[in-house]
């Protein structure tokens, strides 16, 4: 049964491609914002260090874009190939944002090409204008695809009569109750993660004994940005919890191992679940779940026992939720320490311990993204279209999916490793110190 079940393999293959794509998609959404910020600072302060940041990051960015584009193309095809039954129903309602996403890609792709190859063809202020469509295009592609995902979580804007979909209202399907929190949380967390990854690489260089002022400028800029984004991520994450309590209470309850409907509900962190649904070794924070769900410690939170047994998501998502929130706390406190040390000139913001913590923050942020998505998507199970269609019904009936899984796994491993190697080589062979020296020489010649 399991050995040749197309549904299991389809889920596995889809998850694999998502988990891979989302790494590059997150970078793809966040880095342009930082590039724009750096180029703008360079213009305002007339400081070539910032301009150099924008140039260097752009060069790395095109490499990750390439992998984002190919894994995204794989997703676009696989979504149709693996979920033909789902797409024929959902396509009727949700085609619009998917279609609009492509225009966002076009826009981004065109202007990225222009931006990249016109550094010396335009004045800095004009050249800066070309990064703006890239920022807009990247963020809009996240916006539109997340709208599709919101629809799967809170479908509306159509009716199903006798298995046939009718009375479709495209705009209502596009903007569902899930959209505001989902879109904003996805965007801000992508900005946060990108800022941390760059900060991490600068911190690594400083740890390695490089001491050029360039690295410190990178660190200051990205960590200040990360500080703002982290607080926003935290606040919007809290709002996402309130959305769940209202529209998808089973996801919230499964994430919190909350079985009995009750008021003054505690939040459980960590722990182990016994066969009889008792929580052992967990850490209970009194009233916290009620606060997360409704912003009021006395409010009532619906428990899992109120749902039919076959509509409850897997309970292990508790851990992915905890991991995301835990990392969220980490990613807020590290920039906070840095910013405090910087402003009040107490202690050294560039001390080794803090630098090491920043380096770790980069990969951790990416893990938070993965955990968040796993929580959100597995927490929707068994539904593919919540309340309307179960994942089982959506899948392909083809029998070759198992083999494809292995092939794609190999492909992503190879692509991932090559991409990393190319990036490392690229930045190592051409250090900022060298580039700055070269620039000075050139301007001396003029």
């Amino acid at each position, binding site marked *: 049964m399991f050995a040749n079940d197309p549904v299991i393999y389809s889920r596995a293959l889809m998850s694999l491609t998502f988990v891979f794509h989302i790494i590059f998609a997150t970078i793809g959404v966040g880095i342009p914002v930082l590039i724009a910020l750096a180029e703008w600072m360079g213009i305002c302060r007339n400081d070539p260090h910032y301009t150099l940041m924008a140039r260097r990051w752009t060069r790395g960015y*095109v*490499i990750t*874009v*390439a992998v984002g*584009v*190919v894994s995204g*193309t*794989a997703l*676009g*095809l*696989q979504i*149709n*190939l*693996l*979920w*033909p039954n789902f*797409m*024929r129903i*959902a*396509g*009727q*309602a949700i*085609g*619009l944002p*998917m*279609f*609009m996403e*492509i*225009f966002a*890609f*076009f*826009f981004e*792709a*065109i202007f990225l*090409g*222009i931006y*990249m*190859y*016109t*550094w*010396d063809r335009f004045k800095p202020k004009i050249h800066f204008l070309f990064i703006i469509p890239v920022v807009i295009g990247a963020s809009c592609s996240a916006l539109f695809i997340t709208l599709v995902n919101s629809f799967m979580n809170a479908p509306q804007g159509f009716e199903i009569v006798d298995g046939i979909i*009718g009375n*479709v209202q*495209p*705009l209502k399907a596009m903007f569902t109750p899930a959209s505001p929190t989902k879109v904003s949380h996805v965007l801000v967390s992508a900005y946060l993660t990108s800022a941390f990854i760059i900060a991490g690489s600068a911190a690594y260089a400083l740890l390695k004994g490089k001491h050029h002022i360039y690295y410190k400028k990178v660190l200051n800029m990205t960590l200040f940005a990360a500080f703002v984004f982290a607080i926003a991520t935290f606040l919007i994450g809290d709002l996402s919890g309130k959305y769940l309590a209202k529209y998808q209470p089973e996801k919230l309850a499964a994430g919190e191992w909350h079985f009995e409907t009750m008021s003054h509900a505690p939040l459980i962190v960590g722990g182990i679940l016994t066969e009889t649904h008792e929580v052992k070794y967990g850490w209970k924070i009194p009233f916290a779940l009620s606060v997360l769900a409704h912003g009021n410690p006395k409010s009532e939170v619906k428990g899992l026992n109120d749902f039919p047994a076959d509509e409850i998501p897997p309970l292990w998502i508790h851990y992915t939720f905890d991991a995301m929130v835990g990392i969220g706390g980490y990613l807020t406190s590290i920039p906070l320490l840095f910013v405090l040390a910087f402003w009040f000139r107490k202690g050294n913001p560039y001390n080794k311990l803090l630098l090491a913590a920043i380096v770790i923050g980069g990969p951790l942020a990416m893990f938070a993204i993965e955990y968040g998505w796993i929580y959100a998507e597995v927490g929707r199970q068994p539904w593919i279209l919540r309340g309307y269609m179960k994942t089982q019904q959506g899948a*392909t*009936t*083809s029998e070759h999916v198992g083999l*494809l899984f292995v*092939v*794609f796994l190999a*492909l992503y491993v190879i*692509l991932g490793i*090559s*991409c990393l190697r*190319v*990036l490392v*080589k*690229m930045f190592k*062979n051409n250090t900022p110190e060298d580039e700055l020296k070269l620039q000075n020489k050139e301007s001396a010649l003029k």
Partner: protein
Amino acid sequence: MNLEVVGITVLWTFLYGYLIVASIDFGAGFFSYYSYRTRKEHVIQNIIKRYLSPVWEVTNVFLIFFIVGIVGFFPDTAYYYGTALLVPGSVAIILLAIRGSYYAFNTYGIKSREIYAFLYGATGLLIPASLSTVLTISEGGYIEIQNGKILFQYNKLFLSLYSWSVVLLAIVSVLYISAMFLTFYAAKANDLPALEIVRRWALIWSAPTIFCSLIVFYSINLHNPGHYQHITDLSWMFACSFLFFLAAVYFVWKKKNYGLSFICVMVQFAFAFYGYGASHLPYLLYPYLSMYEHFTNQSMAVALIIAFLTGLLLLIPSLFLLMKLFLFNIRYVRGQMHPKGE
């Protein structure tokens, strides 16, 4: 015109766009590897790189546009084609993935290696071959429905004359279109040694294009006579296509009007491509999927078309800017600007 026709025309137009820009790209990959092997790379690598670097990502979006668009306008295509294309589609994905990423690694990242050049060249021919099977499948005869389950007959596909003739035509056309474009680009760049080489390629690949088209006509008649009948009804379109082919080759032969010659190539393929498309209608997959019965609902169709028109308002000026900066800017084309801008 009704909404169905608007929808399919929009999609077909983007597929035509993909056909042209992707052929240039795929063929360039092959020629670039070929020149590498024959130690002529220093002569033509430059023009190929200068054209491809800023635009390769845009090429890919044309394909995605078609896929997302066709499922948007005709959601049932996902159901019928999804099962059939799982394997060939995945092969195409993998080839596209290898090609795209190694191109980027090679161009923007570290110095070139022969293995990258080889992958880039080989995938350039294999991708059109695997994508063209979609058109083959759409003729019908390779998919069967038993007990509501869709079965795809691989052995039939592999043993059919029709399917191989389409593959052949796809590969040859890619080389022809690409060589014609490079001829135009080399002439524009005033790069005479390169022009010498690519002009010869263009001439070499011209006659086989027509020859392969004839084989395809012949085998369509064997495979799906009803469709062949529609093709003969539209024979004037194919005749026009042939006339533009003659004009294009004539200009290249006479070493003049290279720009006009490439426009003739585009018109040649436009006539053939739209002629083929029109004769195929109303079926998207013979005989299961027809564009009238399997269209999306009215409100979605209207929404999609409005989104499309708004999108075009953004897209056309941007594409125009891209072409102005990199295709029609003499100084850029001649390499008087450092291509990396660094």
